[in-house]
């Protein structure tokens, strides 16, 4: 049984079907690449999984149980952690506050009187960012003062700094440097090895070949194919993403959508 199953999910924005009857399964200990052209519906799909959007139809099964996510809180409580492509950080807070937003560490001074445990949070933040090879002026600086890649790293650190069993990453390495990208790919492998289900959205097929076990390809809101990474080549994938069609010569491993 899959850890997370989506069944016939549809989501409309006005006249536009952003998701059109999408069914897909995610398993523990597996990295699944979610691929597709710009506007294919990848972000919309993961927003449905993370409780940010509510789908118009379809259902979500978590370890076989039907669940309904009315808000991001519900998804977080169910152990689904998400790194969003947009709107992940608060510009006016510092790096530490952003990293721990929604799950601040506190220390109790007297019964009923407790403070933020800033020292512990700063320490942990430095560790996390060091693991990602990020070079920040200071963990005390406001997020609005960071470079594009630094912001992205903070968002990644935020997502991995939590207990969860499913982690979703929407184009995590898009703004990252060479070293940082390597670290994130390594991290993804670690997460998988710890038995988590990882959903990884990217446009970088090298990265897909590198860390993903399975690929799901979307186009115009539909799932158009699914394959084990080991069985397909980069060019095959690229072709499928672009044309939306499976080449006559495609191997059997590249399944047409059910």
């Amino acid at each position, binding site marked *: 049984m899959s850890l997370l199953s989506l069944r016939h999910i549809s989501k409309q924005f006005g006249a536009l079907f952003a998701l059109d009857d999408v069914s897909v399964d995610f398993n523990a200990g597996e990295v699944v690449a979610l691929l597709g052209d710009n506007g294919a519906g990848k972000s919309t799909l993961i927003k449905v999984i993370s409780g*940010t959007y509510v789908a118009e139809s379809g259902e979500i099964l978590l370890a076989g149980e039907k669940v309904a996510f009315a808000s991001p809180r519900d998804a977080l409580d169910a152990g689904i952690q998400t790194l969003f492509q947009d709107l992940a950080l608060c510009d006016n807070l510092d790096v530490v*506050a952003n990293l721990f937003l*929604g799950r601040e560490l506190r220390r109790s001074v007297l019964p009923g009187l407790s403070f933020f445990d800033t020292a512990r949070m700063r320490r942990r933040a430095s560790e996390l960012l*060091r693991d990602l090879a990020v*070079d920040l*002026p200071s963990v005390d600086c406001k997020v609005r003062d960071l470079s594009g890649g630094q912001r992205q790293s903070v968002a990644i650190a935020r997502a991995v700094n939590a207990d969860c069993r499913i982690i979703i990453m929407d184009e995590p390495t898009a703004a990252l440097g060479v*070293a940082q990208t390597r670290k994130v790919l390594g991290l993804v492998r670690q997460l998988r090895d710890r038995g988590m289900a990882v959903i990884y959205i990217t446009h970088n097929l090298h990265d897909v070949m590198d860390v993903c076990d399975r690929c799901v390809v979307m186009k115009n809101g539909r799932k158009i194919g699914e394959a084990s990474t080991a069985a397909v080549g980069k060019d095959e994938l690229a072709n499928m993403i672009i044309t939306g069609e499976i080449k006559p010569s495609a191997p059997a491993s590249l399944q047409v959508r059910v």
Partner: protein
Amino acid sequence: MSNALSSKWAESGGLSAPFWRLFDRVGPLLLLATIILAVTAIRPSFLTSANLMTIGLQASVNALLAIGQTLVIVSGGIELSVGTMMSLSMVVMAFSTLTFGVPMPLSMMIAVLFGVAGGAINGFLVAYGRIPAFIATLGMLGIAQGTALKLSGGYAMYGFPDWFDFIGNGELVGIPFPIWIVATVAVLAHYLFTQRPMGRYAFAMGASEESVRRAGVDVRRLKLRIYMACGVTVGCAAIVLASRIDSAHPGIGLGYELDAIAASVIGGASLMGGRGSVLGAISGALVMATIRFALNLFGMEPFLQQIVVGVVLIGAVYLDTVRVAQEERRTKVRARHH
């Protein structure tokens, strides 16, 4: 190499950041000091501790309202009903003790509860009704005003017990009691702003409500609680004002809302949300009280006073803007104004 650098920078940044942060917070106080010095330069006899106490006293009601207002503004909202809700709380307190004979301490609690209830309605409308804060609280302004007038028939109400006078007019170790109240509320509010998740989320929400929601925070409940917290300061302000004038007036609060917002903004809050502080709000209230007191002291005629208050307000905030811009050039502190 990269990590070494990172930690080197982190350290130098880590050392200086708290200092500049403090400076950022102290900014509005500097503005206040400048104004006090300017007035003293014009009239040296101004700078007496008695006068400073009087200014503190006169600023107290506005300071209380401005603290609550700042929390709302920080979160990206606005609260136009603080003034008339204060009137209503006063009238309800007077009613409960004068008409129904409820003991005064209980009546005071009822006043605070009424402030909180008003805040809860506003918060509910904004959070769950998705009504723009400006409209929801403007509507409440009218509702509270009308209710206060209806309850009292438009007349002032008198007859509080003698000891009640102490709250607004008494002194403790030479300092007017309302100043102690403001100080207490300020400490609690500062704790809320800087050490409670609620305060932090309010700031975060001011920058990006969706990010906060995605972090798993129930933003609607958060908004509700923010307006309710603001209501607490409204209730406290009602008690202080009622005691200070030893009566309850149904129409007295109108106009306080703009004063409270102005104090907030002078103190560095941005109406776009995400910026503001308790110390700033208090400094802002003191700045306004100082200007008005000084002009009254100079005996300036009311028409001219309005002009001068306007000019000084603009000038003071302009100076502050210039100062911040200069600091910014040298430090990491960012522009505070939109």
